[in-house]
């Protein structure tokens, strides 16, 4: 019953297109399509003498042994034994089995002898393993208070091995001082059965071909799932969605977008609150609109904050999401209460226009950049606390204070400086082109820098700043276009663009995933809901805010065609 000679009968039995099967058979002489009849199954096993699987890289002996191991780990002793018998491949050679038994029973000398008999073991390994066994023997003797025997073991059996001399000294110390012994043994107490733990240690020491490591199959499967999850560019769901039954691939269905038309003029900025329950959008019409986001994704208008005399171009939430700081362009900074929508305080400095604002980490102070490049710091009541002159070198630029006190600001048009709050040391991000704006990730470990040459650069802020990725494709020639991180684990980068589309890239690979059309004007700013990885909001010159819903919790079967996505959404205005 060889492979190719039996070409005819299997084809008749199996319902697959003859063309396909023939080509399969040509390329993979050892494997046949798996059919339902037992004969074919038997053939499958027998034919693949050496290897298993379509690529021929899995060795059959290894495959069966790790399955046997997994069965024993799960507690299915009988199944394990049956598999060993049926396949004719035993999990451990008889010598190894004997060895295991002897270790578990505490027959130390015999086990050392058996160890020597196990084939293909390097001297070094034999010595290390013997050391471990004899060490256990030593400890057990001490426990039974047979001190002289323990000493004898140490001098005559352990020491001659001539390895790990420091440990030998430690053990010698144990004989003399019981306190030291206690200290050494404390870790052992955590394991119920020290002999089992010894066996595990020995397993790690011995090559896997001799003793198959515990949980090997589980480890391999976890690796595979990890790879699938990493390669899933749209991955935006929880790990519980991962299943062994099919390859994980997040789909790209889109539910209808919602268009929110409440602003009277271009919408320049928007940001979700940290808890994802609110969205604040600010506009050229000098107002800020607070939207409430319900649990099922409905967005409704909560408050319109009026008071600014100039277009509002920046909004920042307090860390508890109860207050909002807004900045009018070269005007004043206002602090608002979210619940009531009332303005709590106005911060201004006569003769100066304010161009940026932000909170200090504890939320008790706030700063604002002035248009003469200085920075003013107030407490919540409006009392001016400090005035840093010459702080920033660029007139209109973002500034941000991280939760550890590091001040991120722009030194020059092409440089961002991260100044440590305590040590005052500076770390620098140097770019070749002018930086227009930047935004920081939720975990404050990454910075997204928007450049004037139509690129977005991802930098790490931990330690020395490093350029990690570049994102291209969107259009920016004259406007201030902002980008943001988003998705579960912030795996995506989204940006507005002057061509009216929202761009979404995969953060890790830099690959452009999506260009979302729909707006009829330049998209100035995007914000991703931190609490709902499937919700993205965009602000545009067409006076609207759009909420994009990206539903992808249904993993699809891997399908080569699924890479050519067709955007299918309709303008459902709720």
């Amino acid at each position: 019953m060889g492979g190719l000679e039996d070409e005819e009968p299997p084809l008749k039995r199996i319902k697959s297109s003859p063309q396909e099967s023939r080509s399969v058979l040509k390329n993979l002489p050892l494997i046949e399509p798996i059919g339902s009849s037992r004969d074919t199954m038997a053939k499958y096993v027998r034919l693949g003498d050496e290897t298993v699987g379509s690529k021929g890289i899995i060795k059959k002996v290894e495959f069966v042994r790790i399955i046997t191991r997994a069965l024993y780990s799960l507690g299915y002793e009988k199944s394990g034994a049956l598999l060993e018998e049926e396949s004719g491949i035993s999990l451990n050679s008889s010598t190894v089995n004997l060895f295991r038994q002897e270790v578990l029973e505490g027959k130390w000398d015999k086990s050392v002898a058996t160890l020597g008999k196990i084939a293909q073991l390097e001297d070094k390994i034999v010595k290390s393993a013997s050391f471990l066994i004899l060490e256990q023997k030593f400890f057990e003797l001490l426990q039974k208070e047979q001190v002289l025997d323990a000493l004898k073991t140490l001098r005559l059996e352990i020491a001659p091995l001539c390895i790990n001399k420091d440990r030998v000294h430690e053990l010698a110390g144990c004989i003399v001082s019981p306190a030291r012994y206690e200290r050494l043994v404390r870790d052992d107490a955590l394991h119920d059965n020290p002999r089992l733990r010894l066996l595990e240690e020995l397993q790690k020491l011995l090559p896997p071909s001799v003793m198959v490591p515990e949980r090997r199959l589980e480890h391999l499967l976890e690796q595979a799932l990890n790879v699938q999850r990493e390669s899933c560019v749209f991955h935006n769901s929880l790990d519980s969605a991962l299943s062994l039954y099919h390859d994980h691939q997040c789909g790209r269905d889109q539910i209808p977008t919602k268009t929110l038309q409440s602003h009277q003029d271009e919408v320049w900025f928007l940001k979700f609150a940290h808890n994802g329950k609110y969205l604040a959008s600010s506009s050229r019409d000098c107002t800020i609109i607070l939207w409430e986001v319900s649990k099922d994704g409905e967005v409704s208008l909560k408050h319109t904050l009026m008071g600014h005399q100039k277009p509002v171009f920046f909004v920042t939430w307090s860390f508890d999401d109860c207050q909002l700081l807004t900045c009018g362009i070269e005007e004043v900074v206002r602090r608002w209460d979210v619940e009531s929508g009332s303005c709590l305080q106005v911060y201004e400095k006569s003769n100066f226009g304010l161009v940026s604002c932000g909170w200090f980490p504890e939320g008790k102070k706030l700063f604002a950049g002035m248009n003469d490049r200085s920075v003013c710091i107030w407490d919540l009541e409006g009392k001016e606390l400090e005035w840093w002159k010459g702080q920033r070198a660029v007139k209109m630029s973002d500034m941000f204070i991280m939760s550890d006190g590091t001040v991120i600001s722009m030194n020059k048009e092409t440089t961002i400086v991260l100044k440590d709050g305590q040590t005052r040391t500076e770390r620098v991000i140097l770019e070749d082109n002018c930086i227009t704006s930047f935004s920081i990730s939720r975990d404050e470990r990454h910075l997204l820098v928007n450049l004037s040459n139509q690129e977005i650069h991802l930098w790490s802020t931990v330690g020395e700043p490093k350029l990690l990725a570049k994102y291209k494709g969107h259009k920016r020639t004259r406007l201030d276009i902002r980008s943001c991180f988003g998705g579960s684990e912030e795996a995506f980068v989204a940006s507005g663009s002057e061509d009216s589309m929202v761009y979404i890239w995969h953060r890790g690979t830099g690959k452009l995933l999506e260009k979302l059309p729909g707006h009829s004007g330049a998209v100035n700013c995007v914000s991703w809901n931190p609490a709902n990885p499937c919700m993205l909001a965009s602000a545009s010159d067409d006076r609207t805010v759009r909420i994009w819903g990206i539903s992808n919790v249904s993993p699809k079967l891997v399908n080569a065609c699924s890479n050519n996505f067709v955007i299918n959404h309709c303008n459902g205005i709720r």
Partner: protein
Amino acid sequence: MGRVHLMYLHGRIYTCKYCQTHLALVEDVVSKQFHCRHGKAYLFNKVVNILLGYKEERMMITGLHTVSDIFCIGCGSIVGWKYEVAPDKAQKYKEGKFILERVKVVDFDGTNFWVSSEAQVGGSDADDAGD
């Protein structure tokens, strides 16, 4: 049109006559000996806050050059052009440099932000003070 991103220069600068957008530093002037249809023009190393138009070939006093018109990003008015390709070796130094028409810009002392200078609408060139 969204919030236009403007770059700001420090020192003595030339700004757009109509919208006061900063265009170039006085110290970046390479030559003041150029001419355009509307009068004098200066050659600059570096100009900011402009949009580049399409490349086209234009006959100048010195020969057939490839130039792109430049527009102020604040108001969109044409302020000059950029030399892309020059015809012969003697003119090669111009490549990559910018021309700002003197009549389209205003000399502005950028160190003093609070001088409320009105743009000189009218057309006659301001004299270069203290050059």
